[in-house]
Structures are given as C-alpha cells and as structure tokens.
C-alpha cells in the first residue's frame, strides 16, 4: 500500500464528513459522561482543517498532516485539540519530506502519534479514552505485513465498542466512576471515524 498526498487528503475529508454527520451524536455521547461539547469542538476543528487543506497545494504528505495538526491545536480546544493535534504533529514528523506513505511508515507514524497522545494525556490503555482505540490499531499494523481496510475497520470498531463496558479513569468521565460504565467514550468514537475513513481509503486501493 502507498498513500500519496491526494489519498491523505481524501482520508481527512472522509473523516470530516463522518464527524460533521455525527456532530450531534458525538455531543450527545459527551453529554452523558463528559461536558457535552465533543461534537461541537471536533466539527469546528476538522471543518477548519479541511478548509485549510482544500485551499492549499501540497507536495509532501507531511505538510498536509502538519497543517491539520496546527489547525486542530488552535481550533478545537478542550482535551481533544491537544490530543488530536499532537497525534497529527507526530505523524507529520515521521513522514517528513516524503511524497508517499508506505505500510511501514504508516505503522511508524501511528505508533509515534500514539506515543504523543500517551505523553500528552497521561492516560493508559483501558482508561476509557481514545488510547483504547489507537493502541489496538497500532498493534494490528505492527502484527501484519499487509494491512487490509476491512481488518483495520473491524479492529477500530471493536475497540471503540469495548470502551462502553469500561470505567473511565481519565477525562471528565472519570468523575462518574461506576456511572461511566455503559456509555461509549466519545473520543474513541471520533478516533473510530478517523480509522474507518483510513480503512475506506485503503480499501479503495486494494
């Protein structure tokens, strides 16, 4: 597999579409166990990111990812802004000066992004945060020589759904303790949209 600038842009646009379409849903998930702004913040940030990338000409994939990172950092706010912003910034650093992202580079980029998220958010696996989706996705990439879109989507979806049964240990949902069980983690759902979109782009290539 190889992702060029156009495919990376495509990935981001698909992600944005899913976020815009599910803005209310993300917000309602956050209203249940957080502060009810995840959909609002993500839709504002990703729309701004897409506005930026669709009006800019790119030669390298790292510039695309860097612009997305900077836009998310400055436009999303809350906890999601620094977390997603850091993730894209780390990816951008890994793919620096490349025109294409191959499978190994994608693996390294997502792994570095996950490390950035862990460092910034100080969360661990199973704390009911987006780490719970990013970790199995990175593990899948590391385990497989070839990555299929359908596999990626399935792993991300199962990981997202598994957050429902966990008790939150980080973020505002942690205040609820046992009462956070039975609700999906909104950040894991938005991360699922990101990986489901990546899966679609990979499937189109297969």
């Amino acid at each position, binding site marked *: 597999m190889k992702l060029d600038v156009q495919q990376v842009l495509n990935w981001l646009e698909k992600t944005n579409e899913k976020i815009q379409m599910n803005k209310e849903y993300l917000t309602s998930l956050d209203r249940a166990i957080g502060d009810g702004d995840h959909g609002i913040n993500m839709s504002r940030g990703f729309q701004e990111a897409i506005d930026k990338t669709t009006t800019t000409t790119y030669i390298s994939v790292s510039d695309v990812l860097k612009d997305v990172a900077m836009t998310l950092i400055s436009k999303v*706010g809350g906890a999601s802004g620094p977390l997603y912003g850091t993730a894209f910034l780390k990816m951008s650093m890994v793919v620096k000066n490349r025109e294409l992202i191959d499978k190994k580079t994608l693996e390294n980029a997502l792994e570095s992004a996950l490390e950035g998220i862990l460092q910034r958010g100080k969360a661990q696996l199973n704390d009911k945060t987006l780490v719970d989706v990013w970790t199995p996705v990175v593990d899948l990439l590391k385990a497989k020589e070839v990555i299929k879109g359908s596999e990626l989507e399935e792993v991300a979806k199962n990981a997202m759904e598994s957050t429902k049964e966990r008790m939150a240990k980080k973020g505002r949902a942690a205040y609820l303790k046992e009462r956070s069980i039975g609700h999906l983690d909104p950040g894991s759902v938005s991360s699922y949209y990101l990986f489901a979109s990546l899966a679609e782009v990979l499937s189109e290539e297969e």
Partner: protein
Amino acid sequence: MKKIINDPNVVVQDMLKGLVAAYPNSLKQVPNTTVIVRKDAPITGKVGLVSGGGSGHEPAHAGYVGQGMLDAAVCGEVFTSPTPDQVYEAIKAVNGGAGVFLVIKNYTGDVMNFEMATELALADGIEVEQVIVNDDVAVEDSSFTTGRRGIAGTIFVHKIAGAKAQAGGSLQEVKAIAEKVVANVRSMGMALSPCTVPAAGKPSFELAENEMEVGMGIHGEPGTERKAIATADDIATELTQKVLDDMALNRDDEVAVMVNGLGSTPEMELYIVNGKVNEILKEKGIHIHKTFVGEYMTSLEMAGCSVTLLKLDEELKELLDAESKAPAFLS
C-alpha cells in the same frame, strides 16, 4: 433555548467586546485573540499572572483581571479550554521580565492546553510556572485519575497570588503562596437546574422539579448524589460538612468563606445559605475572617451554589485583604 445572544457561535467574542467597553480604563483585549489583559500590561519587573478556561463562568476569569489580581485571562469557547496559541499570546502579553505564573483549574483539557502553551513560551525563553487548582471535594482525590476539579476556590488563588505578585514577589514566591492556597482551600457545590451551552442548544442534563444534585461540577458534571430537594439549612449543612471533613480545621482557626451562586440563584438564597454556614462554623469555634457572598464562578444559568472555605494564616490574611482593582473583586 431562550437567551439574549446574537449568534451562538460568537458569544465569547460578543461578550469580550462588551466587557472591554465596560472597563475601558482598566482592561484591553489583545487584538485577534480572546485574551483580556490589564490595560497597563506588561508591567516591567512584576510576575505576570495568567488564568483562563472555558467561558460561561463569568465573572471568572476576565472579571478578575486588574491591579492586585490577574494580568490576563484567556477566554475559551463556552465550557471549552482555550487553545495553546491563545494562552501563549496571554503569556507574551503579560511577560514583564520576571516570569509568568499560570493558574489552571484541574480539567484534562485546561491542563493540556496550558502545558502546550508553556512549552511554546519556554522555547521563547520566558520563564513560566503554574499551579493546578483542585478544590472540589465532591470528587475523590486520586493520583490514578484526573483528580479533583477546580471550582470557586480558584478565586482565592487569583486574589492571594495576585497580591503577592503585586507586592513584588518573585515567580517562586508567587508559586509557593499559590500552592499554599490550593493546599488550604476546599469547595463543594450543588445544583437545582441545568444550563444550556449556546452552541449545543440543549440543557447539559435534566433534574426533576423536586430533585437536586449534590456535588455537581461547574460544567454540569455529575455530582455525588441526586436526591430530593432539601431546605437551605440542610443543603448548607451538607456542603459545609463535606468541606470540613476534608480539612484539618480546629477550634480558633481562621477561615475565609465564599458562598457562590452558579448563575440563576438569587442573592436572597445565597444569604440564607450563608446564615447557616456562619452558624455551623461559629458552633465549632472557627473564626470567620471574611465572607464573600455572590456570583464569583458561575455556570451560565445553572441554579445552585457552592460553599468554599479557605484556612488562613497571617500571611494569607494579609494578601487576601490587600487592594484589588479587578472589576469583579474590588477590595
């Protein structure tokens, strides 16, 4: 949703325009930001104090910008932490060469965004220190989780650290006194009705006509218990007791009391609550140095209140009593 607004997407910008218009001699807005600074900022040789967070808690934090308190407030979207670039602008705007001190309420987003801004400022050679306020005893204090939230007790940090900086305290001295306040301040709140974030258009939660939620956070985060509404005396007793249970207060200790309204609770009710708080403390032989009753840290139009106690010593008392020219805290 029924609100006096123009457009839910620009409520923060619209509010800041009106705020600066109200205090043209003391406040200014850093152009193209949501940062409010003292009109005379930066003050050479003085530690700059920056706080901030999501909007919707007015007068926190921009109302506390002024001589003797904050140098800048960074105003995020409603209930959403401001972004690192905005915090960084505030740090630059108040850097008078003696370093900048950040007062951060303990929320995951606030801590991350302020820390990213700190990294940017350090890269610029600006010295930055911070304190994280976590006064809400409704939340279990645990190092394995996010920990306690920062609520109305934050105002005492602004006041006392602000007075220390105004008196010429160094960055380390300001940090030490702010940490001392955090170690000695505790709060607990309750709510009767929810609030509606303008951009969301819907209330953040629901409470039945006869219900209240004890331990409710200032963004509508769930509290410790939802139960039938009680009398003011019972509510005051429960909140005060929870706060006292978490503090080492002895007979003859001195405290400052804050009974804070969350947005749509009449002062009448706040004074009723304060009457009982006062009675409880007196019964325990605890001296009340000063009492603050009013809206200091609100939650849009939420109905409810919080009770904050700050254990004082001579140093804290002197700084609490020092002059402040901040519009929302004149003393």
